[in-house]
């Protein structure tokens, strides 16, 4: 057990004891040493179930959507990416800040590839920080996209075609994504027929492209879509392409920060470039 874990348990115990929150979402151990799972702690006797280690990788923010219409606060443990996910959901008018109590956890020990390009290891919003802030690192978020762009059009097509041919359309990438927060998803509107139910590469590609476009200008780069994909499809390589273009066209752009900046596709300026036309 580490210091932060002890402090986290004490904090949660206190919050539950004084009824600040109804329950707290965190992580708990599983029977696999290298896996944790989300935990929902409502009893202060249960706080010892909470853990904090390098295997705490699942995003927690989206569980808060279940409480959209409930009274009172819930607590969420937030790493940098979780806090940005919460910002995303608040900005998209899905959650109210006053219904959340955010327990910030600076995060510097995760071993996932995606975390190498993380630029916000410290929570961007929180009510209380457990542990000391860590140093932010510089990272080139778009290096992989650059490599893709260097390929020929046919090579890129084959790359995505072979990847999407594996997709089983479990929609895990949609379900986990904090930017995918519509109540009804186009992919489920069977009678409208946007998305065919056939399992073939063309339909999977349509799903992939549409998903990308729907979240592209609001993606917080948490990498959850890639982590949860059972078929190892590098789906964030698509949204990052859109973010790279947005950065190039509209200046530095990162989502899920409490800076009040609107998503670029929700607004326009009279002087937008139309050289592509």
């Amino acid at each position: 057990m580490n210091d932060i874990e002890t402090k986290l348990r004490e904090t949660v115990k206190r919050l539950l004891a004084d009824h600040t929150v109804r329950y707290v979402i965190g992580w708990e151990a599983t029977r696999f040493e290298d896996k944790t799972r989300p935990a929902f702690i409502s009893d202060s006797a249960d706080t010892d179930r909470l853990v904090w280690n390098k295997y705490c990788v699942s995003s927690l923010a989206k569980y808060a959507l279940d409480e959209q219409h409930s009274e009172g606060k819930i607590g969420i443990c937030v790493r940098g990416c979780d806090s940005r996910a919460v910002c995303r959901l608040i900005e998209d008018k899905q959650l109210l800040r006053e219904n959340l109590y955010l327990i910030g956890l600076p995060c510097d020990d995760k071993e996932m590839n995606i975390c190498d390009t993380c630029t916000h290891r410290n929570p961007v919003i929180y009510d209380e920080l457990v542990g000391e802030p860590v140093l932010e690192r510089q990272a080139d978020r778009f290096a992989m996209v650059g490599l893709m762009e260097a390929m020929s059009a046919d090579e890129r097509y084959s790359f995505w075609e072979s990847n999407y041919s594996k997709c089983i359309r479990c929609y895990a990438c949609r379900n986990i994504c904090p930017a995918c927060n519509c109540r009804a998803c186009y992919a489920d509107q069977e009678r409208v027929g946007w998305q065919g139910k056939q399992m073939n590469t063309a339909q999977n590609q349509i799903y992939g492209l549409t998903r990308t476009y729907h979240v592209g200008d609001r993606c917080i780069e948490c990498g959850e879509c890639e982590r949860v994909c059972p078929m190892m499809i590098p789906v964030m390589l698509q949204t990052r392409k859109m973010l790279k273009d947005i950065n190039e066209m509209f200046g530095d752009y990162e989502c899920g920060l409490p800076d009040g900046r609107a998503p670029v596709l929700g607004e326009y300026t009279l002087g937008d470039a139309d050289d592509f036309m």
Partner: protein
Amino acid sequence: MSVNIKEGWEPKILAFCCNWCTYTGADLAGLNRMKYPENVRVARVPCSSRVNPQFVIRAFQKGCDGVLVCGCHPGDCHYVTGNYFTRRRFMLMKKLLEYNGIDPNRFQARWISGSEAAKFRDTVTRVSEQIKELGPNVKFREGRWS
């Protein structure tokens, strides 16, 4: 991804035209007996911003070889701001399509006003020539539509 081009193959090009400008422009081209390629199918939409980017992907999936989105010039939109959103949307969409391997000429967007019949004719003629050169599109296409 090799394709056998059948003899007499003609591309299928879908042109989304806004009701207030480009569609009227196309109408004017007809009134003036201007000749433009038959392989362009015009779909009338109330505004160019009605064109959901997904229409474009679906068009490729269902067998189009090229897609054109046309609307009023900036400042002329019947709904005041629609075409500004179109511009942003397709600026990003075009790049995403290219990133996914679609040739930039297969998807194009243009501003054509109601009086620009000649511009409409020239645009669709040019697009049709470009697509002919590229040959049939197989990318994103569902097998049964090939």
